[in-house]
């Protein structure tokens, strides 16, 4: 157990592991995501009320899920940085924050595209949309603070504190559709309940969610590898690797 922790703290070890894991994330991730999206966009039955416009759900819901999950993962990594000072945890936060920002933007963008035909407006200032916008701002803040502090260790801990403070927003996003009356519909999928859609609608949705998560894992590994190479650029193993 302790040996595992020590290994986990070693960037060199993780570099190798990430390299071996990446194909296992990339290939199934691409397959699942493509299957889910093609199935959802072309073959799933149209909605009785929204017709074909609902099909953007197959992009909107996965990105919105991942936007929040990515922040929660960053917060967990931030806690690890503060408590155990694991270098890798900070590498993760730094590598993943821009990905999270992009995914949050995609969720907002697809939501807005979906809002036009169903609600008749691109944007409304309701609880769910506003709290997602705050999430995007939080990602920007995390990226900006990480870039502003020159010293690597201080930057890691300061960013960890900020990420942990911002985690307050996550339950607000999650429950915003239940606490307030909004135009946004309640949660589409719940782990504890049977989905309210027929299987030929929700199976492709689950496929694309899992696919996007796997692709996120691939991207996280890739970006962490890059970050490790940059940080350890003076180490001998990196020089040997590059040459």
């Amino acid at each position, binding site marked *: 157990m302790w040996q595992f922790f020590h290994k986990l703290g070693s960037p060199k070890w993780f570099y190798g592991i990430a390299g071996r894991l990446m194909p296992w994330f990339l290939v199934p991730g691409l397959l699942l995501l493509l299957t889910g999206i093609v199935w959802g966009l072309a073959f799933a039955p149209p909605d009785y009320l929204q017709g074909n416009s609902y099909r953007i759900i197959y992009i909107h819901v996965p990105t919105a899920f991942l936007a929040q999950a990515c922040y929660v993962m960053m917060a967990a990594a931030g806690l690890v940085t503060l408590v155990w000072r694991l270098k890798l945890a900070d590498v993760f936060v730094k590598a993943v924050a821009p990905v999270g920002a992009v995914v949050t933007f995609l969720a907002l963008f697809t939501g807005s595209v979906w809002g036009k035909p169903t609600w008749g407006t691109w944007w409304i200032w309701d609880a769910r949309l*506003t709290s997602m916008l705050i999430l995007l701002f939080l990602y920007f803040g995390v990226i900006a603070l990480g870039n502003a*502090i020159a010293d690597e260790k201080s930057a890691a*801990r300061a960013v960890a504190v900020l990420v942990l403070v911002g985690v307050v927003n996550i339950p607000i996003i999650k429950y915003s559709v239940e606490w307030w009356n909004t135009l946004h519909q309640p949660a589409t999928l719940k782990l504890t309940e049977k989905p309210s859609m027929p299987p030929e609608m929700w199976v492709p949705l689950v496929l694309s969610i899992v696919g996007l998560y796997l692709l996120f894992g691939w991207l996280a590994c890739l970006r962490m590898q890059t970050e490790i190479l940059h940080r350890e650029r003076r180490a001998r193993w990196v020089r040997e690797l590059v040459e």
Partner: protein
Amino acid sequence: MSAMQKLPRLTPKQESVPVWPACWAVLRRDLLSSLRQRQDLFNPLVFFVMVVSLFPLGVSPEKAFLSEAGAGILWVAALLSTLLSLDHLFRHDFEEGVLEQLLLQPQPLYLIVLTKVFAHWLVTGVPLILMTPLLGLMLQLDGNSIACLCLTLLLGTPVLSFIGAIGAALTLGLRSAGILLSLLVIPLYIPVLIFGTGTVMAAGQGLPITSHLALLGALLVLALTCAPFATAAALRISVSNS
């Protein structure tokens, strides 16, 4: 016999650390130093008044618009003015080395931070609240709305100070601290703003406001109990970085 049955004291008696005198001293020092730097005290207030006066001139001086938007304008102006004043919260102490001494004190940093933020609120938040009725009249708000607005500011501005202190501590000693501080803190300010203005709007429509006030109070309690922890951690990071 009875003497032998007594267990020997294994741990030496902890010297009790006087907590309240230290907090009192910090409060007194902070208030005194801001009274002696009056310009720092007045600038956020003047800024508050100026931002408020921009809206009737820039958007519309109509009574209908102002009484509709007045509460929001005053809240946004109070938020921005708090944001500007945050820079002073730790910077002087940091540059003069006082902050390092405070970190070395045996008293819990949590309480010292709490006291410092309270002192900051006394010299920046309270004047804003006192100024609000006058500006409310200029923005054509009715008496009921103004009273409600003052109440929400009384609950809300301490939250702004406590959340802002985290940002101020995180950006301490950085080159572009000002803009970065706004970037970090504004997302966390948005809920306070929403509940604050929501209360006044509910009051304007004659709806009950107790639930809104309870939410603001809950935000205050959350900020009061959690934010000083984060601020203290951030201060340690920033001071060890310099």
